[in-house]
């Protein structure tokens, strides 16, 4: 059922594991890191906190039902590196958000990117574009 309703509002299902990186403080074993899911959403809560910041948002499925999503990103200290702040997101903001969804199909994810209504992009943990060999860190 979940897979069916998702298809209606998934804007992009990219088999692009290299599009945006994600750091794994608590690991990535719970997430399907092989594809991103992109959703139009309304923010209900933005938790700026350790160990990971958490964004809660509503998504309307193709039956008009509201699905409550939760997506995590990194700790505030690391997110500051990315240009995020406690004020980056507010309840009621309309956004387009890309996530790696939980393997169990629940509306849980790791944030890949948030696109604000003013066009500003907030990267979950990373950069846009394909990974290049020279990007890989040297020992």
């Amino acid at each position: 059922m979940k897979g069916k309703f998702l298809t209606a509002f998934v804007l992009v299902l990219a088999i692009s594991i290299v599009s945006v990186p994600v750091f794994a403080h608590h690991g990535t074993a719970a997430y399907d890191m092989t594809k991103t899911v992109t959703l139009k959403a309304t923010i209900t809560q933005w938790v700026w906190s350790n160990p990971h910041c958490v964004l809660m948002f509503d998504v309307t499925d193709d039956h008009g039902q509201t699905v409550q999503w939760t997506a995590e990103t990194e700790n505030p200290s690391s997110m500051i590196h990315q240009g995020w702040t406690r004020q980056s997101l507010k309840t009621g903001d309309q956004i387009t958000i890309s996530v790696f969804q939980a393997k169990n199909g629940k509306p849980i994810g790791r944030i890949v990117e948030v696109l604000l209504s003013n066009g500003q992009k907030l990267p979950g943990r990373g950069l846009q574009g394909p990974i290049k060999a020279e990007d890989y860190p040297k020992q």
Partner: protein
Amino acid sequence: MRKRLVALEIVLTALAFSPIARCEPMPPQSGAVKGQEAAPAAPAPSDFDGWGRPVTGPPKGQKSAPAPRHDISGIWEPGENPLHVLGVLGASAMPEDGKPEHQPPYTALGREMLNRTKPSSGARSVLPAETNDPVFACEPQGMPREDLYEFRTTQIVQTPVSVLMLYQFNRVWRVVWTDGREVPQDPDPRWYGYSVGKWVDDSTFVVQTTGTDERTWVDRAGRPHSGDLRVEERFHRVDHDHLELTVTIDDPKMYTKPWVAVDKLPFYLQPPTFDIREMICSPSENAAYNKLVGDTASDKDSK
């Protein structure tokens, strides 16, 4: 498949912390006035400190002054390689990536103890709700894990009789005694053990730590240690602006020979006004995170 996921985790994590993944630096400001020679442009900010103030990275194309004698004091930002700094896959010189060459030389007991740990990343990773990593329950990192996981900005303070290490993660501090004492014989174990340090040359400070608590993991990959563990930290100040750290693990009960866990981890000096960011493991915040995300993603919730 598992190896592919581990490799993916390495690459994604590395890129996440690469310089180009950070905030876009501001364009250099031109302070030139007509008729006057333009001053060299100040380096663009590459990061922000705990007060949100921009700070600059290490000077590029500019030769650093020589290292001062017997002095490693200052606020040090670790290098940009996240595998080294954050220890995502365990000890950076021995990452738990499934490669045989990255297996520490376990004894039979060491292997048995390793199998009791359930790390949340690397080749043996489990779901978030299934890990028994003590640090994820906000237990102390202890030594040597303080050097091997979440090793972020660190302030080093020197007194006439000691060297103090002030760490960002959990605002932990250590005392390394330099008053000539030796490490104690058969001491009561402590999370951070007992540390003494000596200068072995003008710019190299070597710390020995013993008496650590067996409950801690060596690193995030769950490598074990016994009470017989001996940790050597070798701080080498390359020049005024750069410091390197090498960490060696010696524990005959768990490993057949000493092994290098961190190999010349680079740090660069920050201005003395740098405000170290706060990062603390709070049990209540941890519980809230697990309730919102970790347990649900691991199917340990009631949804």
